[in-house]
């Protein structure tokens, strides 16, 4: 909020929202904090402390959006990023969490340092910045420094448990306490106020009244009476902070098992540089795949721009692939549309979906596919090995899918239905091919079918000698076609388990279509049908005729 009001930097300012029957402070800036104003206070109380308090209404939805943007930005450090469900900025923002339903009052936890928070699980990430604890210290420093450059005031703490880190980030008094040494968080937590345990306001109030003001006061107490007196939550929070109870951080996005990152000393912006970096990332990732025996089905490339925004793009493959060159080709298309903005400082490539890459399985699939591909009488077909052939087609399909979309690159398979428009189903090309000859078999027990079937049958005006006769001529798209030859009818009825469209004239009569193949005097062939109730309705309605396709 302060980012939008630059002049607030010099003023005592606070954001207000309406809670518990009146305007209350939701967030404060540095000056207000030092003046003694706290989140959760009533506005009237705050005004008695600072009469000229500058206020504005809180915008929880915007805050949540900003927090989500920040969370995405933080993925540069770790894929395990979660929005702290107890963050004060989330009140009224519609951000639902389990914690909120467990009776934990966000306003209460927000009483001290009630700003939005992010939780990052950086296990095993520190080594990117240096060895051991030094790397972790560098990571923390890098995080705060970068966020400060974007205009955010942040406090970041790192500890062995999420609970301890939460407490330290909000309540630690000395700068050096923000990074708890390994297994050293117990001593750091002890002097902190009990609110640092993420308790609801009533529990915290009771504890205070009993003289238990610091976490250290709770530590030597026996567990069972504590739980009996204050409920399950206090003990659980205590255990979570100390590390004797597990706490899971639910990442905002599913954390990929395979990912590589590349940070640049100088921001890059040229398309060739980005392509070269992508290629390097791919090479590294394909190495990981090789070791794990998997191939990628979906890859995501994230470009972290200098201005803090993130550009993401993704590619998909039909079969698991770890072919560096092929994957690079798939990236060519989306990379052409990427906008580097003011420059890209970090790129990250992660595999959103991987599948086992079994060379034997591939060979088998190719053998089966080869049987389909083998044509009878292919005397002068080039004798190329089936392996390379099949792989080439798979890669081609991936490229086409990347550009046209998965729904637009398909294989056709027969479906057991009488209705012509339902008799064909489009399947992904990656699915095993239809058995060779199956189509011929299916076509053999059906009547003649048109080479082109209109997506929507078109109504026509017909003229016939007798009401139920096939037409002698019809008018379609403004042209009169005089018919010379007719074949039919072939009666096709909708499946009984599907709800058929009731005909207007006769309510309960089953409807069906009588198909005719007709030829006009020029030899053009059409596939017509008469729609309507079948099996002798009491009052025969006028037949409605449609063109449904063109025959060869």
């Amino acid at each position: 909020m302060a980012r939008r009001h630059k002049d607030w930097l010099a003023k005592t300012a606070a954001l207000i929202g309406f809670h518990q029957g009146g305007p209350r402070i939701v967030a404060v800036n540095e000056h207000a904090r030092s003046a003694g104003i706290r989140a959760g206070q009533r506005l009237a109380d705050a005004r008695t402390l600072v009469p000229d308090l500058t206020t504005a209404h809180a915008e929880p939805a915007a805050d949540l959006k900003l927090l989500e943007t920040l969370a995405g930005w933080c993925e540069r450090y770790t894929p395990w990023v979660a929005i702290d469900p107890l963050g004060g900025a989330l009140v009224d923002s519609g951000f639902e969490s389990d914690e909120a339903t467990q009776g934990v009052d966000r306003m209460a936890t927000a009483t001290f340092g009630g700003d939005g928070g992010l939780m990052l699980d950086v296990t095993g990430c520190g080594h990117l910045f240096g060895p051991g604890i030094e790397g972790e210290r560098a990571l923390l420093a890098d995080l705060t420094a970068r966020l400060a450059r974007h205009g955010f005031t942040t406090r970041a703490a790192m500890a062995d448990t999420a609970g301890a880190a939460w407490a330290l980030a909000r309540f630690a008094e000395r700068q050096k306490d923000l990074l708890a040494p390994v297994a050293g968080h117990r001593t750091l937590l002890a002097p902190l106020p009990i609110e640092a345990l993420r308790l609801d306001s009533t529990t915290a109030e009771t504890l205070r009244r009993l003289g238990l003001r610091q976490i250290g006061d709770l530590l030597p107490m026996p567990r069972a009476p504590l739980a009996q007196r204050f409920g399950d939550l206090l003990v659980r929070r205590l255990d979570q902070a100390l590390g004797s109870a597990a706490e899971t951080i639910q990442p905002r996005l599913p954390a990929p098992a395979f990912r590589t990152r590349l940070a640049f000393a100088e921001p890059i912006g040229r398309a060739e540089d980005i392509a070269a970096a992508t290629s390097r990332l791919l090479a590294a990732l394909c190495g990981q795949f090789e070791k794990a025996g998997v191939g990628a089905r979906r890859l995501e490339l994230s470009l972290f721009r200098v201005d803090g925004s993130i550009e993401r793009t993704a590619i998909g493959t039909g079969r698991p692939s770890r072919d560096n060159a092929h994957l690079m080709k798939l990236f060519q298309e989306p990379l052409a549309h990427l906008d580097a903005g003011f420059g890209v400082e970090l790129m990250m490539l992660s595999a959103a979906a991987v599948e086992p890459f079994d060379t034997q399985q591939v060979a088998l699939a190719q053998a089966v596919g080869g049987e389909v591909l083998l044509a009878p009488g292919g005397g002068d077909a080039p004798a190329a090995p089936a392996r390379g052939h099949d792989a080439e087609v798979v890669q081609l399909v991936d490229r086409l899918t990347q550009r046209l979309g998965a729904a637009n690159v398909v294989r056709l398979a027969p479906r057991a239905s009488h209705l012509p428009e339902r008799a064909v189903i489009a399947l992904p090309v990656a699915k095993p091919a239809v058995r060779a000859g199956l189509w011929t078999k299916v076509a053999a027990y059906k009547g003649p079918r048109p080479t082109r079937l209109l997506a929507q049958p078109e109504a026509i005006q017909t003229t016939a000698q007798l009401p139920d006769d096939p037409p002698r001529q019809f008018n379609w798209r403004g042209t009169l076609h005089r018919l010379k030859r007719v074949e039919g009818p072939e009666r096709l009825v909708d499946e009984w388990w599907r709800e058929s469209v009731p005909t207007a004239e006769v309510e309960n009569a089953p409807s069906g279509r009588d198909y005719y193949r007709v030829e006009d005097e020029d030899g053009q062939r059409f596939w017509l049908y008469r729609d309507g109730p079948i099996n002798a309705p009491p009052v025969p309605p006028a037949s409605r005729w449609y063109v449904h396709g063109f025959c060869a």
Partner: protein
Amino acid sequence: MTVIFPSAFAPANAIRSDAPVMVLDRAEPDREGELRRLRETVRRLERSGGASSAPAIPLDVPEIDAALPDGGLAGGALHEIVPGNVAHDGAALGFAATILGRFAQVRRGQILWIHRDAGALTAPPYAPALAAFVDPARMILASSRRVEDALWTMEEGLRCGALAAVVGEIDKVELAATRRLQLAAEKSGVPALLLRALDKKSAAISAAVTRWRVTSAPSRAHLGADGESLQDIAGPRWRLDLLRNRFGDPARTDIPSWLVEWTNEKGHLAVVSETVGRPHGAPAQRLAG
């Protein structure tokens, strides 16, 4: 040796043919044979762009194959089909499927069929009917709304030598685009079919090796039918006009035309005998290039 063009000296009525005549002042006995050999070399040079490895694919219709260079449709080349009917292109689609069936028999691999989705009035080919000509199980169907995407898909497919054939139903194709397709086909040896719309303006020029006009024709009448009642339907008949035959016989001035019939039971195309050699209704015109 001096080469003299007769038009420079002789009056116009003295020119016996359209072609420039070479007048050689020192006649040598084997000139004719040498010229023939040179022409043959030029033709081979013109055609070879890597396509020499892809053999011509006969249509299995002797009358038609005889008119085609090397007895069939060139392997790594672009062939065009234009519908002759105004109302619909069912016949053109049937003929395309017939050719495709031949390609699929001779070559192994998948067939890439590209359909440009030009709105509600267009529809992709219907697989159950295609099954009579070519196995739809070997087909990959790609559709796109934009012409550029469709052309890109077709070119990308032609670059992939593992395909049996590439078919494109694209209505608006420029000359440059057909040239690109032809080059890609030459390079990989994959035969390409282009089904164009009945549009005189855009279909005028193209780099395709052959262009066929397919018009539906009334099918065979059943014996004993009177003139009044509607008759049964027989196998479809198409009028084929070979509008363009780039490497065909240069001496031939008329448009080769055949009336063919497709028999579903036998699964093959045959020229209907009584119309062999009969000129088509359109006045014969000289073939260009």
